[in-house]
């Protein structure tokens, strides 16, 4: 993956690649002008590397599965439901949750770039940002699902939601059968990242999460 390993043939000094030079230049200029603070940059990176991720969304889904009132308000206004529940960290505006049912399977994309519900899913996977996914999921969602090893019944409607900078979607997957009486913690273990993008479904009981 790394293109930055070409510093081995320098006998004395160090070497920075073109992109490393560009990022350092940008950061130095912005720091000197007071636009950014390196300590804050570190905090932002730390937040995204360690604190947010699909485990947050998984807890939201599990709560919706066990608490019908929470589910109703989640589907009405996901941001408000999550922030008012007091059970989760505060998230940003304009999150919309779309519910998978036997009649409809939802999938999320950003055809323009890569808008994604960071607060509940972390940063998007590489394939979400790729041109093939962004174009194919709109043209032929069923074949994209097949690539992910997911088959939905022929009479289930597929609906693709195109994210924007201001409107971000997460899928509320169907609760797997055979999980009656499970705790929220147990249920959250079944909720995969892909099931909240719609390129997967929740894991079956007994199947370990990938």
């Amino acid at each position, binding site marked *: *993956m*790394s293109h*930055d390993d070409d510093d081995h043939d*320098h006998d*004395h*000094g*160090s*070497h*920075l690649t073109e*992109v*490393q*030079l*560009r*990022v*350092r*230049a*940008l*950061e*130095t*200029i*912005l720091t000197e*002008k007071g*636009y*950014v*603070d390196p300590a*804050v*940059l*570190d905090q*932002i*990176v730390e937040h*995204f*590397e360690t604190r947010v991720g*699909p485990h947050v969304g998984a807890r939201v889904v599990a709560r919706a599965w066990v608490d019908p009132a929470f589910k109703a308000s989640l589907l009405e206004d996901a941001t408000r439901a999550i922030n008012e529940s007091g059970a989760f960290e505060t998230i940003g505006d304009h999150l919309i949750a779309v519910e998978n049912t036997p009649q409809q399977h939802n999938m999320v994309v950003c055809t*323009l*770039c*890569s*808008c994604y519900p960071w607060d509940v899913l*972390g*940063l998007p*996977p*590489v*394939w*979400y*940002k*790729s*041109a*093939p*996914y962004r*174009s*194919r999921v709109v043209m032929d969602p069923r074949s994209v699902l097949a*690539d*992910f090893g997911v088959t939905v019944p022929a009479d289930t409607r597929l609906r693709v939601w195109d994210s*924007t*900078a*201001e409107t971000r979607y997460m899928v509320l997957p169907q609760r797997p059968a055979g999980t009656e009486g499970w705790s929220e913690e147990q249920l959250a273990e079944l909720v*995969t*990242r*892909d099931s909240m993008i719609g390129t997967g479904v929740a894991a079956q009981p007994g199947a370990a*999460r*990938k």
Partner: protein
Amino acid sequence: MSANPHSKQDALGALNAIPAAERAPTFNEPWEAQAFAITLALHRRGVFTWDEWAAMLGREIKDAQARGDPDTGTTYYHHWLAAIERVVREKGITDEQTLLRYREAWDKAADRTPHGQPIELTPEDMV
């Protein structure tokens, strides 16, 4: 990474080649994380709206595709970096000349820093 022009067939085939692991590292390299954090920090300061940012990033991605970038997601942060550089220029925060001058300074700093030691910028690098 080939630079083949996009045909629909290429686009259809390429999805299968993209790693789909559930738990991939958030950033592949530290510079990606820095570019990302700089962008969020500037947004928090109100330098641009997310609409503006999405439009800018979308434009960079389209331009890169037109130049033959396969756009499989692995070059994503290259587009991101180009977009944030364009934003700071267009917002008048800095200009291309200044960006170049600081790049050269960092290059000098790297050259004089023994391998394995942290690279730091000093005023001498700026001359």
